[in-house]
């Protein structure tokens, strides 16, 4: 719906992005913390939103608001068009064959629960196995524990190597004909690791299993083509990719989606309701019970337009360059980095421990210098335990971050060292 008003690439700019122009689209980046300019290095938790997204959401609410798929009136039609237009935009962005392969959800947590319940509870029974990894976010662990408890299926884990990669050396014994589903992150939010999705998809399919992907981190930071990857299901979350909170969805191959049960029952997902049973619409609509976050999905489409305008290959190149720079500087400064040290095989979420300063203390001290990082276990306690740390500090980068901001981070580390030494 929105015109693309995105920055053009200028020669010589880092990774082909004109970061100066991009930053002007994000009003929040001009805030200060005390007398320090805000250095926002926490986009892996949630990204900031450009004016184009803020405006698209507000424009919908101001001039086109109505419930989608319900009202037989002008606004109802406009809302339905905007909502379904957003679905088509998402499908194009992910390389999906058609809009109907995209289920809107309120984010990846809901998407993975939908997979674990809607697929898991109808396809799994005792003796079956679910294979996930030790680097998963809790939203791709806990739903499977719940499903395993209900179905009697067994949950197994792909372990991690010392340098933060999936240890696939024992894959042959972990992935067998007992395995019915592999569910794996595309990019770890705690370690930055990019996983070999096509290889895992082929291995899963070879034993008759399907593969589901948590793309909460991958979708914002890397081009994705669900057909080239041959994944069966893929969840993503809008607020980490410049979009509004409560936007996001689940891609699924048509036959896989059709074989799933809805997780929520209610309005708009039914075909007909009788006293003793109901019939459902076909996918994706049978999964979208009740009033959805319509303005938010419209905002997500604007975010995708913005990212498309930049070009996802350029986004990836920019982040790779800034991550490489950050890894060099952090390691130089004496930080211990958890996860791969090679920027070409990882994303821009860099977990580290600086000397013996606890991550919580570090985050508080950095905040005093205007630098916003995350400290904690990043909802990935299995990965933390694997590397013997209760928590890490994490700096993460996106399209609007600069090397100067990496320098600000490293400069602020000196400050922490001065206090704690």
């Amino acid at each position, binding site marked *: 719906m929105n015109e693309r008003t995105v920055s053009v690439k200028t020669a010589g700019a880092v990774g082909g992005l004109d970061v100066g122009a991009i930053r002007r689209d994000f009003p929040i980046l001009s805030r200060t913390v005390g007398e320090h300019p805000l250095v926002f290095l926490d986009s892996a938790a949630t990204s900031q939103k450009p004016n184009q997204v803020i405006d698209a959401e507000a424009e919908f609410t101001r001039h086109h608001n109505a419930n989608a798929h319900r009202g037989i009136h002008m606004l109802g039609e406009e809302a339905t068009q905007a909502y379904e237009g957003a679905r088509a935009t998402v499908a194009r962005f992910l390389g999906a064959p058609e809009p109907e392969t995209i289920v809107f959800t309120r984010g990846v947590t809901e998407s993975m629960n939908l997979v674990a319940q809607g697929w898991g509870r109808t396809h799994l029974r005792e003796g079956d196995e679910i294979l996930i990894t030790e680097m998963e976010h809790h939203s791709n662990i806990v739903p499977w524990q719940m499903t395993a408890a209900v179905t009697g299926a067994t949950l197994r884990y792909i372990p991690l190597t010392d340098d933060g990669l999936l240890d696939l050396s024992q894959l042959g014994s972990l992935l067998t004909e007992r395995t019915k589903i592999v569910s794996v992150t595309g990019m770890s939010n705690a370690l930055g690791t990019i996983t070999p999705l096509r290889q895992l998809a082929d291995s899963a399919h070879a034993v008759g299993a399907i593969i589901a992907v948590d793309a909460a981190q991958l979708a914002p930071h890397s081009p994705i083509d669900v057909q080239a990857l041959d994944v069966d299901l893929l969840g993503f979350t809008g607020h980490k990719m410049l979009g509004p909170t409560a936007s996001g969805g689940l891609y699924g191959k048509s036959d896989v989606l059709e074989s799933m049960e809805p997780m929520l029952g209610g309005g708009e997902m039914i075909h007909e309701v009788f006293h003793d049973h109901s019939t459902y619409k076909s996918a994706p609509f049978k999964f979208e019970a009740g009033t959805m976050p319509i303005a938010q999905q419209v905002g997500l489409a604007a975010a995708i337009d913005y990212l498309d305008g930049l070009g996802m290959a350029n986004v990836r190149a920019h982040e790779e360059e800034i991550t490489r720079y950050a890894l060099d500087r952090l390691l130089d400064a004496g930080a211990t980095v958890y996860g791969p040290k090679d920027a070409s095989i990882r994303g821009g979420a860099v977990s580290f421990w600086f000397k013996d300063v*606890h*991550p*919580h203390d570090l985050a508080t001290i950095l905040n005093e210098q205007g630098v916003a990082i995350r400290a904690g*276990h990043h909802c990935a*306690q299995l990965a933390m335990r694997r590397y013997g740390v*209760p*928590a890490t500090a994490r700096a993460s980068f996106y399209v609007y971050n600069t090397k100067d901001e990496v320098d600000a981070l490293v400069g602020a580390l000196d400050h922490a060292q001065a*206090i*704690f030494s």
Partner: protein
Amino acid sequence: MALDDIYKEVILDHYKNPRNKRELPGAELQCHANNPLCGDEITVFAHVDGGAVAEVTFQGAGCSISQSSASMMTEAVTGVKIGDARGLAERFRGMMAGDVEPAEDEFGDLVALKGVVQYPIRIKCAVLAWDVLQEALDGAGSASGAQPHTV
């Protein structure tokens, strides 16, 4: 930290040179808890004698706020009647809620933690040791009241 430098020094002093940080063999009261947000861990051991906290020690790992608070707590409640220790815990919590203005003679070094009120997410770190102490004094033995639900 925007905490005044003197307070910062008190906190760092307790963090780097924790008081009473050891196990207490034969302690009749012992209680453990952790703060899953950041992995802070505290175990409190106490000997009770004649209705007073005769000796109290702790073990743990975590950030400067949680660990210094534990260290200060052991100093503040040693030799104190159980009822008074509970009262101090209550008032400490009040200070961290911003409701109680700390009296220097009662609070001692603990006043240094007052600045943490500016960082709401870190108040949990400061009160962790006190939660464990109260739990130990209640004689409950195991960590914080309700057992976590297991799936």
